């Protein structure tokens, strides 16, 4: 038995033979024995076929992963009809007496190199697209196909890297999982894999001897076992069976509303801490993102992230959610979340210290960079902004004023932005007490129950000695929540929970009775919560 590790992009287990996927080796003949006219006719025929394939892929992707993720194949079709691209191919055929496949391959490389040399990050990424369309045509011309999955038996695919079109094209009934040497967990391919619910590992070093061997891909533990020992195999098979059972139970709940037996509806959104979680959000059928923890962008960065960097991240999430609500919480750094370049001084009491909105309102340029990036992303879907750690009306008004400044600047520069809903986190007892006034300023409240509990009970949750004193269901916390919901509703705010308590199934019925409008939980908790909500009957007296 051999074990190799990588980075898992989906918690799941796949068991089966490994198959190494080799991209069709394009041994293209350079010189043609046909006339240039005949070669051009061959090219045109292959191009026609490629267009048909792309149209098919677009439909397939549309069906499986939604319009925004499918758009890439529409762009491929347009690129394949580009005049300059076609002229370059024709030029090589005519002047060099070359084969259509040689001309296509060379042109693809030339165009791809031109894109790869561009300044703009977005345009550099288009180099892969030009290569992808060129390879498609060459494969048709040479009769070489995607050899990997033509074999009849299901397998775990092993490859250096997979392009989005390869990922979508793979026959899923035969694809148990995949393993790649390269690629990032944020790549388009990784998002597709998550959306399609295929266990996958990236960053795995493999060699040719793996081909055909039995293996277990363990997505939970980020590793793959080659030629697994019998005990391990048996244990993994059981785990996989349990997963499948759970999965089919939960899959039946997809597309079903979060509604109680007596008809009360509540929104169930997802919390995310990175763009790579978006696939999970879609896969678990969340109605939106209730908490996008933007600080990961700062924590993963060596220096202050620029407006452009942030904008591209927000835009990707907003576009992938395709019109569903995305609530972005502005920077919540400080306390236990530190980034060196912020140069924050050490504090005696970090949880009560210089953090979140307090940093943002004193270092306004950092804050405005983020607000501008969020506003720009709002042109691509439905975006809400949420300010953390609020204790006073003045903070909300100041934050809104800065947001207004950003809007005015963007407008003056002619940069598009959309309507943005504004809300705040309710996570301090102070905010609960003045909820009535705060509700006049914003459109929604989201209860951050982790901090609210810590501040209300004066208990540091990191300290294990306090476990005996800690009660997450303390009546003081529950009354705070009730008070917030009532105050919010009186002034037309919707109220949700985005802390851990939101996924606490012992409280789901209580929350429904309190009138909460939304629960935002980790993606994996969505479908179990939906199941519970659908079994609750509020018309019956509560069990006490």
């Amino acid at each position, binding site marked *: 038995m051999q074990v190799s590790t990588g980075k898992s992009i989906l918690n799941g287990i796949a068991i089966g033979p490994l198959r190494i996927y080799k991209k069709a080796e394009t041994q293209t003949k350079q010189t043609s024995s046909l006339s240039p006219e005949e070669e051009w006719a061959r090219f045109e025929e292959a191009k026609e076929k490629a267009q048909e394939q792309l149209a098919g892929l677009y439909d397939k992707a549309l069906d499986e992963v939604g319009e925004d993720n499918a758009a890439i194949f529409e762009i491929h079709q*347009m690129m394949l009809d580009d*005049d300059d691209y076609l002229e370059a191919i024709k030029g090589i055929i005519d002047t060099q007496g070359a084969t259509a496949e040689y001309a296509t391959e060379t042109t693809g490389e030339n165009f791809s190199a*031109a894109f790869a040399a561009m300044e703009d990050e*977005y345009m550099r990424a288009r180099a892969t*697209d030009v290569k992808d369309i060129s390879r498609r045509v060459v494969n048709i011309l040479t009769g070489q196909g995607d050899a990997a999955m033509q074999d009849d038996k299901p397998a775990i695919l092993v490859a250096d890297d997979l392009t989005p079109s390869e990922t979508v094209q793979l026959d899923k009934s035969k694809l148990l999982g995949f393993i790649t040497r390269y690629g990032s967990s944020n790549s388009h391919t990784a998002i597709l894999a998550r959306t399609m619910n295929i266990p996958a590992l990236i960053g795995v070093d493999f060699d040719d001897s793996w081909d055909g061997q039995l293996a277990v891909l363990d997505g939970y533990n980020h590793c793959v076992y080659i030629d697994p020992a019998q005990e391990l195999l048996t244990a993994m098979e059981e785990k996989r069976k349990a997963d499948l059972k759970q999965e089919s139970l939960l899959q039946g709940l997809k597309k079903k509303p979060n509604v109680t037996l007596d008809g009360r509806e509540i929104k169930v959104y997802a919390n995310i801490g990175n763009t790579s979680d978006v696939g999970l959000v879609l896969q678990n059928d969340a109605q939106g993102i209730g908490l996008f923890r933007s600080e990961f962008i700062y924590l993963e960065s060596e220096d202050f992230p620029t407006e452009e960097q942030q904008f591209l991240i927000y835009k990707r999430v907003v576009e992938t959610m395709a019109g569903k609500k995305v609530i972005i919480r502005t920077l919540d750094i400080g306390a236990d979340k530190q980034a060196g370049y912020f140069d924050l001084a050490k504090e005696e009491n970090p949880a009560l210290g210089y953090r979140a909105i307090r940093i943002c309102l004193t270092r306004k340029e950092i804050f405005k960079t983020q607000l501008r990036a969020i506003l720009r992303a709002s042109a691509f879907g439905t975006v809400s902004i949420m300010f953390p750690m609020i204790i006073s009306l003045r903070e909300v008004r100041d934050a809104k004023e800065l947001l207004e400044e950003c809007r005015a600047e963007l407008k003056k520069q*002619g940069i598009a932005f959309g309507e943005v809903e504004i809300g705040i986190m309710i996570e301090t007892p102070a905010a609960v007490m003045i909820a009535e006034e705060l509700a006049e300023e914003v459109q929604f409240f989201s209860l951050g129950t982790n901090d609210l509990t810590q501040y209300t009970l004066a208990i540091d949750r990191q300290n294990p000695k306090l476990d005996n004193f800690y009660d997450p269901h303390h009546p003081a916390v529950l009354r705070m929540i009730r008070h917030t919901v009532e105050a919010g509703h009186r002034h037309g705010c919707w109220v949700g929970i985005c802390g851990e308590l939101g996924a606490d199934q012992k409280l789901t019925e209580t929350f429904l009775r309190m009138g909460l409008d939304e629960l935002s939980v980790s993606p994996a908790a969505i479908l179990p919560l939906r199941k519970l909500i659908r079994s609750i009957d509020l018309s019956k007296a509560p069990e006490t």
Partner: protein
Amino acid sequence: MKQFTYTITDPVGVHARPAGLLAKAAKGLDSTVTITKADGSKSAAATKLMALMGMGIKTGETVTVTVEGGDEEANAAAMEQFFKENL
């Protein structure tokens, strides 16, 4: 010849999708449509998708759109409408 200038508001600039739509729209016209950067450094025929993308036009940049031949009046108006709606 008819000309107008336009400032790109699309946050990503002239990226693949609108460039593709522009090429498609321009192909349907009986005029030659040319896009030129404000500083005159780069220009491309509006029918050429990859050349348009290769110009790397960013948000906030101003371009000049030139319409020549055919029904210039109507085609320039159509192009202006297209830019407003898509870019």
